[in-house]
């Protein structure tokens, strides 16, 4: 099999100008992932700076109300910067530093990856520039200011649909112009090889901790692991440790926006077809001529027309299932978890909570669902208020 493939998917579909950069990264990562100094330094940062391990919380009230399987929440929202994104950026920015780079660039949708990258760059003395679609800078104005506060320069991307995919285009174009001192810190398990493998490796700590923590709490494996999927980094991180455990069902929740039958959605597995875009072969929402579709979700972090290649393969091989969750279901879950457990989830993560809400009552009381709560919802409060028609001053 060719390198960087997950079944048919993945690959390295990049302009020639960037091939040297991705191959340099591949070589550096191949070395540092086995380098004891690198591993120790990263472990130290994850523990002392990001706050790992994150809690595995038994949501007793939710469990009781839903009346079925036990629901556990993996609290990635409690990490420094408020989401799982920090796991990956600490790894990649540290890697950039070891490679002798002095500048990092990144795309961001909701702003979580941008904030995390800006944070790691501040900590490790790197220049940082973030690309964000204009629509997202409006939906997530506070995160723009937050990134600037951390010393990053934020570029507003005004091409195309002005959302996450356009932010990726903008960052790729910037990298093409300047790569000698710059590393593209990609935020999800997507893009050309080696990014899907690097990001998954830096995120797999989530599943590893879930397994250890649940073994202590319950003495067994979970029956189901649920996570939201845009590009799919938190899901891949939560799933990876369990791929070889066939009894554990893996479920990814895609953003269905106004519904899978409505053009305003971002459910790639449900509606997409195989294509090649952003450096990878995978599923994409597109038309019959291969034009990438303008997708939609209330969640800026899931508003992406593709999915990571390893997920595409997990779906084809039936090792994981992918289900669509609408805006309405996600907002309902957002409010439900806030009210029931006093935990405000990111609207992205609320997609996973929404599915758990449907699934738990259908399962037996001795079964276990782990929901990866990938981020906290503070950033979404204003958007949810707008969705509900409540007028507030930000």
């Amino acid at each position, binding site marked *: 099999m*060719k390198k960087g493939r997950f079944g048919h998917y993945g*690959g*390295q*579909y*990049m*302009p*020639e*100008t*960037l*091939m*040297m*950069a991705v191959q340099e990264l591949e070589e550096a990562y191949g070395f540092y992932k086995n380098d004891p100094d690198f591993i120790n330094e990263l472990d130290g940062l994850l523990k002392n700076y990001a706050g790992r391990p994150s809690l595995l919380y038994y949501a007793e009230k939710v469990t009781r109300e839903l009346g079925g399987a036990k629901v556990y929440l993996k609290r990635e929202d409690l990490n420094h910067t408020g989401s799982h994104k920090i796991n990956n950026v600490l790894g990649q920015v540290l890697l950039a530093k070891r490679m002798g780079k002095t500048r990092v660039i990144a795309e961001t949708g909701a702003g979580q990856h941008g904030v995390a990258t800006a944070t790691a760059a501040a900590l490790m003395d790197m220049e940082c520039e973030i690309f964000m679609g204009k629509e997202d800078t409006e939906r997530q104005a506070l995160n723009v200011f937050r990134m600037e506060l951390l010393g990053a320069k934020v570029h507003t991307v005004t*091409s*195309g649909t002005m959302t996450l*995919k*356009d932010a990726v*285009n903008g960052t*790729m*174009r910037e990298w*093409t*112009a*300047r*790569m000698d001192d710059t590393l593209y810190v990609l935020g999800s398990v997507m893009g050309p090889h080696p990014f899907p493998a690097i990001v998954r490796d830096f995120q797999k700590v989530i599943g590893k901790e879930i397994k250890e923590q649940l073994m202590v709490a319950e003495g067994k494996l979970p029956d189901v692991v649920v996570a939201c999927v845009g590009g799919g980094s938190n899901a891949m991180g939560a799933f990876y440790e369990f791929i070889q455990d066939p009894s554990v069902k893996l479920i990814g929740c895609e953003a269905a926006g106004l519904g899978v039958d409505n053009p305003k959605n971002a459910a790639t597995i449900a509606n997409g*077809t*195989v*294509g*090649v*875009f*952003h*450096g990878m072969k995978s599923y*994409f929402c*597109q038309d*019959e*001529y*291969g*034009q*990438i579709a303008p997708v939609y979700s209330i969640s800026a972090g899931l508003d992406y027309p593709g999915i990571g290649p390893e997920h595409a393969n997990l779906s084809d091989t039936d090792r994981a299932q992918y289900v669509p969750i609408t805006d309405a279901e996600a907002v309902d879950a957002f409010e439900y978890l806030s009210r029931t457990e006093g935990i405000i989830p990111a609207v992205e993560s609320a997609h996973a909570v929404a599915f758990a809400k449907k699934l738990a009552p259908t399962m037996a009381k001795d079964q276990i669902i782990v929901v990866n709560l990938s981020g906290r919802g503070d950033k979404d409060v204003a958007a949810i208020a707008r969705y509900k028609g409540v007028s507030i001053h930000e």
Partner: protein
Amino acid sequence: MSRITNAFANRKAFIPFITGGDPDIETTEKLVPAMVEAGADLIEIGIPFSDPVAEGIVIQEADERALKGGCTTDKLFDMVLRIRQKTDVPLLFMTYLNPIFTYGKEKFLSRCAECGIDGIIVPDMPFEEKDELANVCELHEIDLISMIAPTSKERITLIAKEARGFIYCVSSLGVTGVRSEIKTDIGKMVQKVREVTGVPCATGFGISTPEQAGSMARLADGVIVGSAIVKLVAEFGKDSVEPVSEYVRSIKKGIEDALK
């Protein structure tokens, strides 16, 4: 001798680029023969893509205009078939892998052959992934044009050895678009190619003035100009035939003058 090889024989080839269907198919259909008349030796037609990651703002906007105007791959095939009745100039399609892949690789290349397309350029398909199209291109006798960049270094040998038609020599880092100067040592890149193959080298990215075209023509076998022409189409729209022809003549003259 193929039409592409022929276009490079005994001359430095001038290769203008326009985005197909910008602002509409009718204009593209007039522009192609007009550019041939004005001195173009090969013509590169872009199939618009929603997310052209290797393009600067000028071609991005052209793609958007074309798609908004209803341009599709099928409409461009039909247009090329009509153009082929009028001219023997080598015609190339430039597009991203996804429009080809989604159309169906076999169907796309067989239609290329039917309509008289001579070669294709796919900027997001590097050497490592060219198996995706190489065989089906060969089957239909369409040249799959290879690209080399200022960062290619040792890769140049690897790429040049398997090159067909001509080699697209990317002059600068970054995306397409007009540049005030070109800093890369193009002569050195071409020399590296020469060590392994006789396939001609055409250089592009950033070239916009007759002087730049002239100095590039001294170093390479051909000169590609894209964004500068697309800018004229953006400005003059349906009335761009005349200004584009005039511009193409000026570039052709710049190339010829440099070689005197």
